[in-house]
Structures are given as C-alpha cells and as structure tokens.
C-alpha cells in the first residue's frame, strides 16, 4: 500500500489533522487501533469540551462527533482495529501494520502524523510502597470500564493525584453510587483545572489533601486499606501525619505521558520535559516528514487546543507533501529560550526559512502565580509583552507571535516574571 500521508491515531488530534491536511491531490490514510474513531473522547462523557472551538459546552462524544461527521463527508480513508507495529524511514516511511481482518502488511508513506495520544503513569513509575493487591489502577482505565463497559471497579474509593481524570472520576464514581473518601495530591497545589476542583470535589464534599501522598497499601489479594501522609517540601513523608482509609479501590491520576514509544526506532530528538519529540512551528520533528500533534506531542488539558494545534500540523503536512520537490533543508532553525518560571515551550524550535503565519507557543509554568507578565525578546529588544492572571502548572498557557513582530532571524527568548502585588 502506498500513501502520501498516514495519520496514526484517529482521536481528536488525528481527526483535526486529517481534516486540514485533506486535499484532492493527497492520498490520506488514518489508522485507528480502536473499533471506532474518536479516541479518548469516547469515554469522556462529561461536559466541558468545545468552549473555545465551538463556543458551546459539549460532552466528549458530542465534540468528536462534530469532527467525525465532517471527516466522513470528506471520504478520507481509514482503518479501524488496526495497529502500527513498526516504523522505518528511508526516503519514505515504511509502516508495518496489523489487524485481525487484514493481517500484517506494509504501507509506504511520504509523510506521517503521530497523533497517538498519551498513556497514564502507573503505580510502578511513581514507586508507591506497600503490597500489590488488585484494586489499584489508573483513573482512565477505571473510566473506560465505567463509561464504555458499564462497570464500576469498586465501591469505596480513594484517589491519588489531582489530575483532571482523577477529579472527573471522583464525581463520576460518586454519581454511580461509590463512596469516594478523598483525593491526595503530593504537590501543594492541585494538578487539575480549577473548574474540576469545584465541580467534581467541592460540590460533592470530597476532601482534597494537598501535600499528601500514599505511603502504605495493605491487602494481599484485594486492596483493604491505604495510608496517606503529609509531605515536606522535599516530598518526604512527615512523621505522625498518617491518615488511614479502608477502601477497595485506589485510582491513580498522577500524570500522562505522550505515547510515542512505538516510534523510538526513528530516533527523533526528544524534549525531556514533554517526553516527546522536539518540533518546529510546523510540528515537524528532526525526522523529515514526521509530524507530531495533540497529546502525543505534549499533554493538553483542553481538547480544543488539541484540535487547533493538530489542524496546524495537518496543514503543515499538506504543504510538505505538495511542495516535496522544492523542499530544501533549512539551516536557519533556532531553539526557543525560556526562563525558569516556564516548564516547557512547544514548539521548541523556530524555522525562520519561511514564516508566513502566526506561531502559537504553548507552555506550562513551574509554579502558581496570581499575576505575571510574559515578555518575548529578540535581538535584545522586547518584541511582545502579555499580562497574565491566575497562572498554575495545571493550566496550559498560550501566546502568539505574529510574523510582523519579528525583527530579524535571530533567537527568540520567552521570559515570565511574577508581578507581586
């Protein structure tokens, strides 16, 4: 099979990328491992999606349905229940793909968009002490069992980590009749959106224990009891602060990691902060023709931003394919510099060879700040400033740099300074 563009992953990112990459001259294939398109949105039956893109509040399935309808109208080819098992790159990409219906086969493609989403950090990766009974699982897995399969994983629940999925599941399991005894967060602030703290915890009187973590787990075969403890500034448990909860379930909402390990063989350069590829403003990696977007690039808290970013990635892939013959490797690429109050910036690189559209920079801050100011500097001159309020590590920030702001083709720095009142 020979294609111009293969999009791996048919969730929010893949669908948006496919719509914008669509062109009569481009042969596109979307590969989805699940039995339907839509990705993680299918199990996100709560509302809160679409406020930026559609200016209205939708559920996850409603949001993905809008993209899916458009996608179906365009008759873009897609494969379901199909997994990419290997990727190689010579001039073109060679994907090895597998499914029950078609077996194992190869696809050649000029360009590839990775829109494979992210996976949940596990108990192992945060080294939780204690025994290893059943009843401890990532919150997203429990969400799938609940919203797709129709089963509760437990009746008395504690949640470790205040990521959005954990907060959403605290409410969801409560509504289904489970007793949620609390949420512990090791950081002194919540890792979820403020609206989720209010709507999922406060509204249901579920306590949030900040600066707390789980320090013991009891139960040989089935989870029986957990202990949480307050932690000091170095995250070490403080003596005599133990609280014990008898629960049958411990859900983990302790972070998401871009799911790109299938593509490790391509050896693209990674950003240790995002744990995914380093990209330029076209969302292209150092591997020519390989684009990454959505949660596979960096973990977003709003799907709207996934869609907006992925549309850009799709457009870039379209340009790449249509202008393949005239494409030369740019030697005018600069890394974005930023100060310590910023945890990461995406895209990490600017290619000055052909800037013709505004560049959206997404980033996360390293600490909570009530008021702050962003400054963009080029060639020792301030080219843009922006005031910001209520900054928190849990909420992704954005600034846009327009081509006309740029003075020359030298490096850009983004500085964030807290404004103390």
């Amino acid at each position, binding site marked *: 099979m020979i294609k111009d563009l293969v999009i791996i992953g048919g969730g929010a990112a893949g669908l948006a990328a496919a719509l914008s990459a669509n062109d009569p001259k481009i042969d596109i294939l979307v590969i989805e491992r699940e039995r339907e398109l839509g990705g993680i949105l299918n199990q996100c039956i709560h509302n809160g999606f679409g406020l930026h893109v559609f200016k209205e509040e939708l559920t996850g399935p409603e949001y993905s349905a809008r993209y899916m309808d458009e996608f179906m109208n365009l008759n873009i080819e897609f494969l379901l229940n199909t997994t990419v098992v290997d990727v190689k790159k010579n001039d073109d990409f060679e994907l090895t793909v597998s499914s029950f219906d*078609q*077996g194992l086969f190869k696809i050649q493609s000029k360009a590839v968009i990775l829109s494979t989403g992210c*996976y*949940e950090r*596990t108990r192992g990766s945060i080294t939780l002490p204690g025994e290893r009974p*059943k009843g401890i699982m990532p919150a997203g897995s429990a969400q799938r069992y609940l919203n797709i399969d129709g089963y509760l994983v437990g009746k008395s629940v504690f949640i470790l980590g205040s990521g959005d999925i954990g907060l959403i599941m605290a409410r969801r399991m409560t509504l289904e009749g489970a007793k949620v005894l609390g949420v512990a967060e090791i950081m002194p602030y919540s890792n979820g959106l403020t609206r989720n703290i209010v709507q999922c915890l406060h509204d249901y009187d579920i306590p949030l224990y900040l600066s707390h973590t789980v320090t013991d787990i009891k139960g040989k075969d089935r989870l029986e009891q957990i202990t949480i403890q307050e932690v000091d500034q170095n995250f070490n448990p403080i003596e005599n602060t133990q609280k014990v909860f008898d629960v049958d379930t411990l859900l983990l909402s302790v972070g998401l990691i871009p799911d790109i390990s299938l593509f490790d063989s391509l050896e693209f350069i990674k950003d240790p902060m995002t744990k995914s590829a380093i990209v330029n403003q076209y969302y292209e990696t150092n591997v020519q023709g390989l684009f990454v977007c959505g949660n596979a690039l960096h973990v977003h808290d709003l799907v709207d931003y996934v869609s907006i970013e992925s549309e850009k990635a799709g457009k870039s892939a379209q340009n790449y394919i249509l202008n393949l013959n005239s494409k030369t490797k740019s030697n005018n690429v600069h890394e974005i510099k930023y100060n310590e109050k910023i945890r990461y910036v995406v895209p990490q690189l600017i290619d000055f060879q052909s800037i013709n559209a505004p560049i959206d920079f997404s980033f996360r801050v390293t600490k909570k700040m009530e008021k702050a100011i962003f400054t963009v500097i080029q060639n020792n001159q301030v080219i843009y400033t922006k005031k910001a309020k209520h900054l928190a590590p849990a909420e992704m920030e954005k600034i846009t740099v327009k081509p006309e702001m740029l003075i020359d083709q030298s490096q850009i720095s983004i500085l964030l300074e807290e404004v103390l009142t």
Partner: protein
Amino acid sequence: MYDYIIIGAGIVGTNIARKLSQYNVSVLVLEKENDAANHQTTANSAIIHSGHDPKENTLKAKFCVEGNTLYEQMEKELQIPLLKTGAFVVAHNHDEELMLKDLYERAIRNGVTQIEFLNKEQASSLEPNLADSITQVLSLPSTKVTYPWEVAFACLENAIENGADFKKNSEVTSIKKNQDVFEIEINNNEIILAKSVISAAGIFSDQVAYLLEKNVPYQIFPRKGEYFVLDRKVKGLINHVLYPLPTKVGKGVLIIPQVHGNILLGPTSTLQDEKELASNTKVGLDQIKRDVKAIAKNIPFNLVIRTFAGIRASSSFEDFYIQESKEYTNFFHVAGIDSPGLTAAPAIAEYLVDHILNHQLIKKENYNPLRTKKPTFYNLDFEKQQELLKENPRYGNLVCKCEKITEAEIIDAINGPLGNDTIKGIKKRARAGSGLCQGGYCEEMILKIIARETNQSLDQINYYGLNTPILAKETKVKL
C-alpha cells in the same frame, strides 16, 4: 490413591513433578494458590548462578553448580528462555580484591570451572557502565538468567503431559498417616490418599510439616527482598549480572539483565515474621537506589516500570533440608530452599528422586521430555508471521502494544495445558501487561478475551486469586 503427592507448585515442586513423571507412578501436585509459581518463584532475581557463592560442601554449592548445567538441558527440552549473560563480582579496593580472591578459591572448590579475574579496563570494555570506583572483577561466564515463571509452568506442563495431575486452590489443612497411607485433607473438606508425600511448600514448609510431625527439624525465617524493574528500553545498558561482594545476609543488591530486555535492581534482605507480606518500603527502595551506585553508573530510574518484593524461605538449618521425615516413613522434606533455589531446583529434583526417596521406580516407555512452546509472534520473521496468520488471524490483533503480544498468544495462555483465566495469570504466561503502561491500556481487552474464551461474564474475571474480580458491579444504566 496417588503414589506421590507433592505439596507446592513452585519451582521446586514443579521440577520434582517433572522428574517423577518419567516413571510409572501416579503424581498429584497440590497448590494452595490460584496458579503455580506464585510465591518465591514469582518474585526473585531470575538468575541461574554459577555456584561461586554458597559455602563449600553444602547441598547449596553442589546443586547450584549441577543445576546451572541442567538448565542448558531444560532449555533444549522445554524451550525455556535462557540468556547467557555471565556475571561480574566487583571489588573497589585492595581489601575487597582480597575477598574476591577468597571467593575465587571457594568457587574453584565448589566446582565452578569457568572463572577468571579481569582488571578494570578489561571489565569496563565489556561493561561500559560499570561504576568508576571498581578496581577488579571476578568474571563468571556460566551465570545466566531465565524467566522463572515460564520454567515452573514448563516443568508442570511437561509433567501434566506425562500423566501428572495438578490441583490448584488446594490448601493442605491436615495430614494423617494411617498404616502405610497418607490422608491429605485439602481446604478442610476433601481427603486425598497417597503412599508418599513430598513437601515442597516453600515459605510454608515448616507449617505443612507440623501438620504431621511433632518435631520439625527446621524453622523457616521469611526474608524479604525488594526490587525495581526497569523498562526494556534499557536493553544493552548492562549486559552481565553484576554482584557486589557477598555479605553475611546474602548476595547484596545486584543489577540483573532480564531475558526480555528489562533490568532488575535488587534485592534487599530483611528478616520479618510475616510469611506473605511482600510489601515494598521506602527504606528498602531507597537502599537499592544507593547500593547500585557502587556497581554501575547511568542507571535510569526514570524508566522504573514496577517495584515488587518477594519472600525467601530461609531456614534455621542454613543448608537445603532434603530428607525423609525422622518420624514418618515416606514423608519427605524439601525445605529451606532459598537462594540459589531457582538454579538448584532441577538438581534438587534429581537428588530427591535418585537418592532420597529410596523407591524402585520404573521408567515410562512413552515418557516425552519435550515441550512444544507456543509461538511468540513478534519474535518471528515476516514470512513465518504470514504463515501463522493464515492459520489464525487472531495473531493480527495486537493487544499489548508495549510488549507486542497478540490475541492468539493470550488465547494460548488461557487454554494451554496449564491455562489460567486471570489477568495476572495471563501476564505471567503471555507477558501481556508487563510493559511501560503496565496493562493500563490492554487489561480491559484481556479481560474481555478471557470472558469470551471461558464463557464468563466480565465481572467474574479475577485479577489473580479467587474472588479478586476487577469489576465490582454493573452501573445503574447499562447501555
């Protein structure tokens, strides 16, 4: 009535079962858990030691050296994985080099034939991530690693195919001897008769023996060991088993490459009273992080995918205790099998059957020592994969994407001669869920496959033990 009942389906019980299944005798293996290989065998270092470390003139020393060789035979007959890593024992200064010399001499006396000293440069060229502080290593090329779950399952499968019986979820609750016949009661309700009983009950050996004997000649001291597991992305970072110098309490914290590319770090060594409390502790895990620095550099703790702990059945007897009961003829103890128990297990089985049982056994004419392993799809080349797909399209459905395990392999694990219908049972057979996401993605798919293959509803599927369902109840509104 059985000729032999073996209590315990760990690495020792399953090797004994396989050995006995060569003969014209009836054999039953009893296991209290919902699967074989679920205590010491489930949580250990997976090393086939060379035999350099046990005290001279002990059964541990003898069977370690013999067992190391027997694993090569098992590799051929049972198709178990064996990674010939070799091992380095490391020294950091003159005093430690003297201890290394003592260890060398002990190894020679134990019958280890492949052994040599390497200086720092020689060692570092073979193992670039050795700690810079190391001055000399003792190289033990015969050290290997295996996959202990598969070894135990393979032995028991092979025993079953040669006529042995296996009963899981069968805890021995009483043992009586009535004239020449043992009456073994399981789960307080069923009696099974046997002419001979072999107790290979691991951590519970002394408790099982006390069901019969007044004076049990040893006491089991549970000794916990904690470990980190690194993702298989680290493959190649460390290629030899790396040991510090042994201490009184054991071999110390090691770095152990695994057959599927992972690396284990551990174990700690802590005596405790509880026989089943295999919990991880901050103290233990912090100790591992500290101790490995003395043997290797560049260990990526950000690639930890799991921690676990296991309990070794150390005994007051210190050496392996493999003897007939002094109170009851035909009751046999195989106890105190702590390290190097995994290595020694096949040699223990031979010794027990050939020298301790003292029974006239006649070989079966149709005994088949071979086990045909089910295919691991992504270990095969493209052409072979295409052939398999023609036979079974379920190889096309990738379930565990981290470890690349297909639906067909999961079905093999459910339906094999020693099949299992639990999430962890499938993980221990097919390795689905062993990778980076630890089943976060594939557990639900596996659950559904098990339910379909075994005609159970989704909420009947257990994590591992009986009554450990993953799903608690149906939601209020069922679509």
